[in-house]
């Protein structure tokens, strides 16, 4: 099987998988008890979006560290692509969370620690791009934004694990509790859909990320030919 054919098969598989996840979220998973109407179904999209935002941040860190070591422009492009997608998924997670909050608590924004954490993540990504825009020289842009990305990553564990434990949160308790033990208290079919959605969104991120990196690689190759 050629590379392009394999890529097409994977794209179709991803498309079908995501359609199944959407159908399962509305027709297979039962409505959760203790929530208004069908509002809890948003968890099948909101949680994977937040997960992908954090995953993108991790990919951005790895690519930034690689760039600092290799100075290969494609690693800088990888870091920027991951940050761009992370920004998009942070916005989506914020919007879906806000819609859910309005249904449940009649307010789009409640200053919940997790709401604030995702907004800070969004601000970090926005600052990362503001920094990139302010540096015209490509090599310097790569190294300074990589340094900022690594520095910013230090705050992430504090945003995700420490701040939500300092303040009372509207959000349900985390999957990994304060004791460090894994606890999943979810109806079996809901859990299946949530895990399926997590896989689907991770696949979606991988596909979009690969597209961005291929585009950057093509741009770099064209510029190399023009300069030659």
């Amino acid at each position: 099987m050629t590379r392009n054919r394999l890529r097409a098969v994977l794209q179709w598989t991803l498309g079908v998988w995501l359609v199944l996840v959407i159908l399962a979220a509305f027709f297979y998973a039962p409505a959760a008890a203790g929530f208004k109407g069908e509002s809890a179904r948003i968890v099948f999209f909101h949680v994977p979006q937040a997960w992908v935002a954090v995953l993108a941040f991790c990919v951005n860190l790895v690519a930034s560290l690689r760039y600092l070591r290799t100075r290969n422009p494609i690693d800088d492009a990888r870091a920027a692509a991951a940050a761009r997608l992370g920004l998009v998924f942070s916005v989506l997670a914020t919007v879906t969370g806000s819609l859910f909050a309005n249904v449940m608590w009649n307010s789009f924004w409640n200053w919940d620690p997790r709401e604030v954490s995702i907004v800070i993540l969004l601000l970090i990504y926005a600052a990362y791009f503001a920094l990139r825009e302010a540096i015209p020289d490509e090599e310097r842009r790569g190294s300074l934004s990589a340094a900022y990305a690594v520095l910013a990553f230090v705050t992430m564990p504090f945003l995700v694990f420490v701040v939500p434990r300092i303040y009372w949160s509207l959000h349900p308790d985390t999957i990994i509790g304060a004791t460090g033990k894994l606890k999943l208290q979810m109806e079996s079919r809901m859990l299946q859909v949530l895990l399926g959605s997590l896989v689907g969104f991770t696949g979606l991120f991988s596909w979009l990320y690969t597209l961005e990196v291929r585009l950057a690689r093509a741009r770099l190759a064209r510029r190399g030919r023009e300069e030659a």
Partner: protein
Amino acid sequence: MRASTLLSESLAVLGKELTAELRSRVALNAVGLFGLTTLVAVAYQIGPYRIQEQDRPHLLAALLWVILFFAATSGLSRVFVKEEDAHTAKTLRLAARPLAVFAGKFLFNLILLAALYAFIVPLYCALMGYPVQGVPGLVLLLACGAVALSATTTMVAAIISRASGSTALFAILTVPLVLPLLVMLIQGTRAAAGSAAVAAVVPALQGVVSLGGATLVISVYLFPVVWHD
């Protein structure tokens, strides 16, 4: 031999910073006057009597750190921006190793923050009627907070000094990085104000020390990349 050279280079950079600052007093004036102006505005508009009793612990701790942080941002970026503006960065690169430059600038920002805290915190407590039960706890928290803030701001100052529009960028890049730190500092200040025991501020201190320590270590590792690029 190597360690003593690094120490002497760091102290030389710190000495240069202090001499230049005492000559011009730009950062000192900016930080001090920004802090004082904000404090007067807050005290005039809110004062000790316009906050409900149940809201006082939260609001007074938060307002104190808002004043301290924004006053600090007005002057802490200067350590590197002025080197680029005066075209002295290249000379400094030749004269001292990166770690010594970072250490000298970090210590200078730390001294600037200590001066700001020593000036603003007692004034704030007096003007806003903020009785602090646990003074040792608060002092400990301020000291650890200053180290963490100085580490972050010194590193961000080094990054933005190499970019255009650096003054505006400093706040944009710093605020998201220090927000978790500020949350923990506000929490700790609230605890120090309410209890005389140092143990009350320990949970917040643990967070501040670990975040500050991690930032400091990462900054030391990254600084040569930023400085020599």
